[in-house]
């Protein structure tokens, strides 16, 4: 289910959630497991990449709100611009 939606971040990049989960895995592996040096280095680089990308995502994101339309519309959605902060 989550892989189906992992494109939300746009342009095929992994979602913030996927990045955070992967980052947790990498940190856990580096901290807990006994890795070969090459492998540790590769994980480190991948992890640093996720940190940078995730920070960029947070800086840019804006809440996307959509409405689930009636059943006649085959579960389609449309943007819901309800809020004028008040």
């Amino acid at each position, binding site marked *: 289910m989550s892989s189906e939606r992992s494109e939300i971040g746009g342009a095929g990049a992994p979602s913030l959630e996927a990045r955070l989960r992967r980052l947790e895995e990498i940190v856990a592996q580096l901290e807990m497991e006994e890795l070969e040096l090459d492998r540790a280095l590769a994980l480190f680089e991948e992890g640093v990449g996720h940190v940078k990308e995730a920070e960029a995502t947070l800086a840019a994101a804006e809440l996307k*709100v959509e409405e689930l339309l009636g059943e006649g519309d085959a579960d389609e959605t449309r943007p819901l611009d309800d*809020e004028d902060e008040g």
Partner: protein
Amino acid sequence: MANLDLFDPVEEPEGKSESFPPASSGDETDAGSPPEPTIWTVSQLNQAVRTLLEESLPPLWVSGEVANWKRAGSGHCYFTLKDESAQLRCVMWRGDASRLPMDPEEGMRIRTFGQLTLYEARGDFQLVARQLEGEEGEGLWRLAFEKLRKRLGDEGLLAPERKRPLPRFPQAIGVVTSLTGAALHDILTVLRRRAPWLRVLVAGTRVQGEGAALEIARAVDRLGGSGKVDLLIVGRGGGSIEDLWAFNEEPVARALASCPVPVVSAVGHEVDVTISDLVADLRAPTPSAAAEAVAPDKEEILRYLRGAGERLARGLRRGVDVQSRTLSKARSELRRAGNRMMEPRRRSLTLAHGALARLGRGLLEPRQRMLASLRVELARGVRALQRRRRDTLSRLVGTMDALSPLSTLRRGYAVPLDDGGRLLRTVRDFAAGLEFDLRVVDGKVRCESLGTRNDEVTGEQ
């Protein structure tokens, strides 16, 4: 029956009849002849009584037991209220009846508020009930709530182990609530602040009034099953127990229970818990609190990311350290392992040795003891045998001595023997002319038989 009683007052004084003009004229009231009775139509009378009832008795509370509750296809409800000795016919029109959380049960003690009236078409005296609640004031609400809670509980739908954890980093959140309510506004405000990268999918529904429960349930089914959201927030802002009632209804409870993604209930209210709260995976006290609960905080994630950078670097350094430590540890491990492997084998060898020795001793000793005792017995046996033999021998010698013919011959007896050495015992053995030997103690005498004579007395010996 009631109709009959009501005839009494109108037959009496004229004062009253002015307000309810009867059909006949009142011209002859003072005439000497007996006055013509005032004749009413049934409609006039029922209308008069109805007015009388409605004007003389304000709306009131009445308590009793419910009997024959019937909800008609029109939505109107008809029932009888009774105590030990009397009953009262009641009706509750659809508008009021639709606000009841459940129909009262037969025999249930209730109190109801309404207006007494006369149903003119039938002449029935009845109460038009506007409100209805349990006698203790707890109301049908509480009863309906408890009944549903018990039923769902019996099915295991309220069990704590059914509660699913919320995803830590949801990506898309579903919200089922009114599109125009404060609840949605509150939820979106919180999400925008805490987790602006989220996608929010809203299914708008009515959240109170007739049919709201089914709408909510349907929205939960559709949104929860859409595969587009990681969890659901279902709720509305605060209100009276009647306003919140949809969240206490079975269709909503079942939709939440069967929702494929975790559900947070967010019904804005302070004290009362709703059935939705009990079935949901998490109960939030308000819609804002629900949003707080489901959305990871942006600041928190940023802190986490900064921390993660440092942990990655430490992890890498640690990787190097670990490698060299691993090597030396492995070396000593290997040595220890070698010792560990030898030790038990050495021990078991010693053990086996001892066991073998003990086993040998164990096998030999009893046998040696047996052998010794056998030897003693054998010696004893041999001695006993020899003694027995000696005894037998001397006894035999005695017997033989007694039986020996020599001693008989010595006493002067003789024994005839034929040439074959056989004993000749009877006269039949001595054919005439038979030559034979007569054995005496010191030799043989050659004889010849000259004849025989039977001697009955002697016979055979």
